């Protein structure tokens, strides 16, 4: 009997990474989660950093950081109106490294909102929401799951915002719940249910707390696992569709040497030719392990490092304890809602309920509005779409600036001083104007290019620009009393209210 090299404990633990026979290799695929998670081979184009920027991986890593830091913070936080604020103070000043945990939680929450936005932009701009040609592919469904995750992320962020029970928290939630109250007919009942009464208090805090720590994270975890599993079912990242199309055009050649996988292991030999771009064209693909695994680990590491560095630099703010009697001036929502707050400043019904509702519905419907099959998975600037995207972006810029000018220079109530009807001001205001202009853009481009992809693309780029401009306006250009100030203008000093 030949002498076998002695296996160390490490070898035994890591055997699936270096299988020594075909049988072991097959077994490894089934028993190692990471090998089972990814396909055997991946296209080089799919794993290129500058194709996907690994934004989905970043989002999920941030969610993991949030879960861990959040779980630790739960040991110190008390969800009661008397204790909440002071337990945050304790976390910041008494608990060892409490400040770091709270900062990491806050920084990764903000980063996650940014990453989710960028991930959505990336998927749209590469046209990756279109159904592929492999069996069972349904990317449009995965896009909808993505929109659900986007909404869940914003809801998690918003519910977490109330928990410190400081002025910032209290007034952001006052504004948020009153926006819900502006829903026609059932608005007040919705607000009553959200707040758990007429006034924001203990009922509200415990409601938001339970949503924040149990309900929403459980939903987000379940949907994100589904979201990642769908990527495999959809035939990989959308760029593989280009390769798949090329493979389909190839003549079925002689049966080539290939591998089949089963629960029993790998069997080599000549079998049915699999028309999969990764196996047919081996020089364009690499084994997932280690190539993809290492990249994912690097991204995870980089995300953790960036979060840690930012947490060391930026303090997590804590204002004065919540005081219902004094509204801070200006009172602002979290940054990602400031675009909405700008619109809410024109009409609570349009800006706070109808527009967000319409935008989220429209985002979910994008794959069904645009069913064209061209350029799936290709960055927009490599296709004729570029000029329409630029057109849409410029149009969005002009439309938003026009709406803001109208809002700042000619407030509706001074244009029509004699009209008292609220319905009139809900219908005629800069927010509605902006909405109508962007909807018009879709039909203009559709008329000019007779392509739903180009029309959707122009509209989406206009949406991105509107979102950025409105958020910037709410963040930097609005001062006390929500008056307009240029960044270089000083805010007037207001006397402290009595």
């Amino acid at each position: 009997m030949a002498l076998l090299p002695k296996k160390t404990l490490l070898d035994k633990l890591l055997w699936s990474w270096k299988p020594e026979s075909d049988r072991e290799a097959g077994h490894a695929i089934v028993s190692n989660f990471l090998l089972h998670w990814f396909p055997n081979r991946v296209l080089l184009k799919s794993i290129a950093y500058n194709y996907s920027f690994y934004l989905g991986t970043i989002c999920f890593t941030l969610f993991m950081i949030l879960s861990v830091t959040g779980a630790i913070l739960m040991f110190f936080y008390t969800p009661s109106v008397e204790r909440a604020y002071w337990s945050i103070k304790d976390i910041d000043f008494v608990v060892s490294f409490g400040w770091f945990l709270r900062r990491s939680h806050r920084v990764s929450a903000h980063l996650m909102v940014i990453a989710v936005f960028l991930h959505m932009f990336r998927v749209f701009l590469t046209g990756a929401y279109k159904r592929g040609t492999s069996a069972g592919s349904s990317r449009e469904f995965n896009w909808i799951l993505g929109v659900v995750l986007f909404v869940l992320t914003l809801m998690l962020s918003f519910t977490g915002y109330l928990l410190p029970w400081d002025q910032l928290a209290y007034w952001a939630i006052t504004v948020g719940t009153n926006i819900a109250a502006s829903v026609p007919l059932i608005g007040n009942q919705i607000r009553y249910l959200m707040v758990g009464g007429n006034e924001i208090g203990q009922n509200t805090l415990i409601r938001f707390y339970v949503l924040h720590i149990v309900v929403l994270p459980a939903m987000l975890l379940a949907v994100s696992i589904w979201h990642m599993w769908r990527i495999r079912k959809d035939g990989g990242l959308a760029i593989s569709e280009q390769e798949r199309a090329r493979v389909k055009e190839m003549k079925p050649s002689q049966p080539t040497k290939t591998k089949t996988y089963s629960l029993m292991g790998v069997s080599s030999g000549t079998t049915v030719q699999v028309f999969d771009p990764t196996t047919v064209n081996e020089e364009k693909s690499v084994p997932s392990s280690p190539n993809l695994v290492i990249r994912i680990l690097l991204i995870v590491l980089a995300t953790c490092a960036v979060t840690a560095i930012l947490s060391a630099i930026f303090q997590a703010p804590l204002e004065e304890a919540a005081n219902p009697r004094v509204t801070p001036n200006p009172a602002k929502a979290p940054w990602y809602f400031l675009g909405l707050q700008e619109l809410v400043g024109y009409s609570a019904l349009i800006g706070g309920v109808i527009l967000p509702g319409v935008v989220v519905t429209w985002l979910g419907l994008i794959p069904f509005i645009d069913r064209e099959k061209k350029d799936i998975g290709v960055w927009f600037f490599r296709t004729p779409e570029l000029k329409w995207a630029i057109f849409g972006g410029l149009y969005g810029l002009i439309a938003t600036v026009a709406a803001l000018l109208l809002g700042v220079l000619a407030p509706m109530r001074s244009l029509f001083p004699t009209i008292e009807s609220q319905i009139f001001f809900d219908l005629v205001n800069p927010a509605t104007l902006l909405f109508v202009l962007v909807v018009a853009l879709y039909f203009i481009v559709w008329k000019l290019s007779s392509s739903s992809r180009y029309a959707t693309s122009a509209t989406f780029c206009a949406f991105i620009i509107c979102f950025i401009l409105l958020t910037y306006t709410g963040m930097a250009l609005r001062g006390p009393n929500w008056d307009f100030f240029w960044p270089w203008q000083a805010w007037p000093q207001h006397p402290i209210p009595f």
Partner: protein
Amino acid sequence: MSKKDEQVNKPRRSFLGMMTGGVLGVGALSTLWISVRSLVPNILYEPPRKFKIGLPETYQDGVSFIDEQRIYIMRDGNTFHAISGICTHLGCTLKFSPFSDEKEITVRNMSYASKGEFICPCHGSKFRDEGTNFAGPAPRPLLWFAVEIAPEDGQLTVDMAQEVDRDFRLVV
């Protein structure tokens, strides 16, 4: 099973299927109802809507703010009235910004000497000191609440559950 049996069984099966679906549906709906209904509070531990705010003579002429309930008490000689200090847009607390001199202002075809205006810090809504919204997104005028003298001790009493129109004045 004979053909005849099959014919008899078909409607029976679909009937049973419908019954099962119905029971499951009713079960799911009632569970949902129970969960949602339990979240609607039956008792609120909130401050009372009707409360005393002290003797009339303790109020100076002009505007006073009761910060607990966020209402403004306006005194003009021997008349009193109470205006809500909560913006009708999204519920932020209003600030009263007095004019340096009284201004003649016309609201609802009636002109009066205005002492100042209410300003909302959240979205910049503005209200006349008698409650009419005239700038910004506020959709409605401010609420006016009933004010009375408590018979037992002569204190001013505000009843936030009772809204009154904008001509209400309590004469002491």
